[in-house]
C-alpha cells in the first residue's frame, strides 16, 4: 500500500510542475506590458510609477529569474501581493478559504446523499416509472447551469417566504463560521451547496445506477438470493458495496465540475469566497492573484484525485497490485 501511495504522489509532481510552467508562460503571453495595461486605465503614466510596478511584479528581471522566483513563491506559499488591493495574496485567500471549503464539503455531501440512494433505487426498480423519474432528474442536472438553479432557488425562497411570513426573507450575506452560529451559517450556505451539489450528483447518479445494474447480475448476488438472504440486505451489503467503486472514481473526476460550479454559484449568492475572488481578479486584471488562484485550484484538484486514487486502492486491493 505504501508503495502504491508513493507511486501516486510521485506521479502527481510532473503534472503540477507542468501546470506551473504553463501558468507562468500563459501569464507572460498577455499582449503588451502588464504594468502599462493596468496603469493606462488610470490616466497619466508616470515613469517612476511604471518602474515601481515592474519591480513589484518582477517583470524587470530576466525570464529565468522570474520563473525561479515564481516557483520559489509557490513552494513557500508566498504568492506576492495582489495588484488590486495591494495586500498579500495568501491573506486574501486565507480569508475566503474557509467559506468555499465549507460549501464544497456540503455540496459533496449533498451530491452523495442524492446520487447513491437515487441511483440504487433506479437500478433496483429498473424500467419502472421510478427509474424514469430518477433518470430524468439526473439528465436535467447535467443540462441545468448551476447559476440558473441558484437563481431559481432564490426565486423559490422569495416566493415561499412571502407566502408564509408575508415579507420576503433572504439568506444572510455576512459569513459567520459554523461553530459560532450553526443555524445562521447553515441558513446561508445550504442554498449554494444545494445548487452545486445537484449538478455534481447528476453524473454520479447515472454511474451508481449502471454500476448497480451490472453488479446485480453477478453470480454472487444470485448465490446470496439462492441462500435466502433478504432482498434489502443483498442490495445494501452485496451489491452496493461493490458498485460504489466506479462511483468514487466519478466523484473524483467530477470534482472539477464542483469547483467550476462554486466559481459561478458564489456569484449568484453573493458569497465572498474563492470563486468570487477569482472572478474579480480576472475582471480586475489582477494577474498575480489570477495565477495564484489557478495554481491553488490545480493543486486542490490534483490532491483530490490523489486522495481518490488512494481511497480506491484501499477499497479495492486488486488495484494496488495491478498498477
Amino acid at each position: 500500500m505504501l508503495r502504491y501511495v508513493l507511486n501516486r504522489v510521485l506521479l502527481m509532481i510532473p503534472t503540477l510542475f507542468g501546470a506551473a510552467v504553463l501558468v507562468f508562460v500563459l501569464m507572460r503571453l498577455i499582449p503588451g506590458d502588464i504594468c502599462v495595461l493596468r496603469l493606462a486605465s488610470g490616466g497619466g503614466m508616470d515613469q517612476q510609477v511604471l518602474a515601481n510596478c515592474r519591480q513589484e511584479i518582477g517583470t524587470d528581471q530576466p525570464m529565468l529569474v522570474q520563473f525561479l522566483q515564481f516557483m520559489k513563491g509557490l513552494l513557500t506559499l508566498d504568492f506576492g501581493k495582489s495588484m488590486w488591493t495591494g495586500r498579500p495574496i495568501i491573506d486574501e485567500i486565507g480569508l475566503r478559504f474557509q467559506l468555499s471549503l465549507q460549501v464544497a464539503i456540503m455540496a459533496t455531501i449533498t451530491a452523495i446523499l442524492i446520487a447513491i440512494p437515487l441511483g440504487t433505487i433506479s437500478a433496483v426498480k429498473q424500467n419502472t416509472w421510478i427509474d424514469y423519474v430518477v433518470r430524468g432528474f439526473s439528465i436535467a442536472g447535467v443540462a441545468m447551469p448551476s447559476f440558473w438553479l441558484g437563481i431559481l432557488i432564490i426565486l423559490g425562497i422569495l416566493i415561499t417566504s412571502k407566502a408564509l411570513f408575508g415579507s420576503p426573507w433572504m439568506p444572510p450575506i455576512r459569513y459567520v463560521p459554523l461553530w459560532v452560529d450553526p443555524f445562521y451559517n447553515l441558513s446561508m450556505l445550504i442554498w449554494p451547496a444545494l445548487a452545486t451539489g445537484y449538478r455534481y450528483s447528476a453524473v454520479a447518479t447515472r454511474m451508481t445506477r449502471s454500476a448497480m445494474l451490472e453488479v446485480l447480475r453477478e453470480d454472487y448476488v444470485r448465490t446470496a438470493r439462492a441462500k435466502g438472504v433478504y432482498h434489502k440486505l443483498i442490495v445494501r451489503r452485496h451489491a452496493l458495496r461493490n458498485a460504489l467503486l466506479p462511483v468514487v472514481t466519478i466523484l473524483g473526476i467530477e470534482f472539477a465540475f464542483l469547483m467550476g460550479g462554486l466559481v459561478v454559484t458564489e456569484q449568484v449568492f453573493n458569497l465572498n469566497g474563492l470563486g468570487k475572488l477569482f472572478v474579480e481578479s480576472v475582471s480586475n486584471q489582477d494577474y498575480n492573484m489570477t495565477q495564484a488562484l489557478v495554481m491553488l485550484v490545480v493543486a486542490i484538484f490534483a490532491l483530490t484525485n490523489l486522495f481518490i486514487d488512494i481511497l480506491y486502492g484501499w477499497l479495492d486491493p486488486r488495484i494496488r497490485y495491478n498498477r
Partner: protein
Amino acid sequence: MATISRPADQAPSRPSRLAQLWQFCAENPLGAAGGFVVIVMIAMAVLADAVTVYDPTRNNFGAMLEAPSREYWLGTDQFGRDLYTRIVYGARTALSVGFISAFVGGTLGLILGVASAHFGGRFDLIMQGIMDVLMAFPLIILALAMVSIFGTGTQNVILAITIPFIPRCARVVRSSALAVRETPYIDAARACGFGHARIVMRHMVPNVFAPYLVVMTAAVGQAILLEASLSFLGLGVQEPVPAWGLMLRGGAQDYAESAPWVAIFPGIAISLAVFGFNLFGDALRDWLDPKLKV
C-alpha cells in the same frame, strides 16, 4: 456443379436514408428528442430575422419588464427588450460559439491525437505529458484564465473555450487511433511507402471519425454551457449582444420577484440546448460506436 446464384431482386438491399433515419429514431427516442431540439435551435439561429418582429438590441423604455402577453410572448426585460427575440438571437450566439469552439478544438485534438498514436515513442510521451498538464485544469478555470489573458468579447470567448477542448478530444481519439495503428491496412500503407501525412490523413483519421464526432457533439453542449457561465460572470460575450448567460446577469436577479420571466426563460433555453446536444451525442455514440459506451 451447381453454382449458387441469387436473383438480383433478392439481393439484400441497403435501407434508404429515410428508413435508416427512422430506425435511428425508433431505437433512440431520447436521442431523437435531442436531435429535434438541436434542429429547432439551428432553425431559430438561421431564421432569427424571419421568426421575430422586434430588434434584439434596441431599448424600449415604454415597455420595461412587461409580463408575457400576446404582444411580448415571453415578456420584456428591464430595458424593454423582447425576451423571445433575444432568446432567438441568443441561439445564434450560443450555436456559433458552441460549433466553432467544438469544431476547432475537436479537430486540433483529432490531429494531435492521431499524430500522437501514429508516431508513438518520444513524441507520444511529450504530447501526452502536455495533454495531462492541460487536463489538470478544470474546464471553466482554464477558460477563465484564457479570458484573463485575451480579454472578453465573443471571439476571445471562442478562443478561451476552444483551448481546453483540445486535450479532451485528443485523449479519446488517441486511444482509438492506437488500435487503428495495429491494423493490417496501416501496415500495408507503410509497406507501400506512403508518407506520414498520407497515412495519418487518409488512413487513420477516417477510421477514428466515430469517436471524433461523438466527442465533438458532446463538446458543443459543454461549450454552450461554458459560454453561458462566462457571460453570466460578465467575462464572456458583452452587452448588447444577445446571449443567454448574459440575459441572466444583473436584471434577472434584481427583478426575480417582480418579473420572474426574465430569470426563467433564458435558463430554460440554456438547459434545453445542453440537454438536446447531450442526448443527441449519447445516441450518436451508441449508434456509431457501441464500444465507447461508459
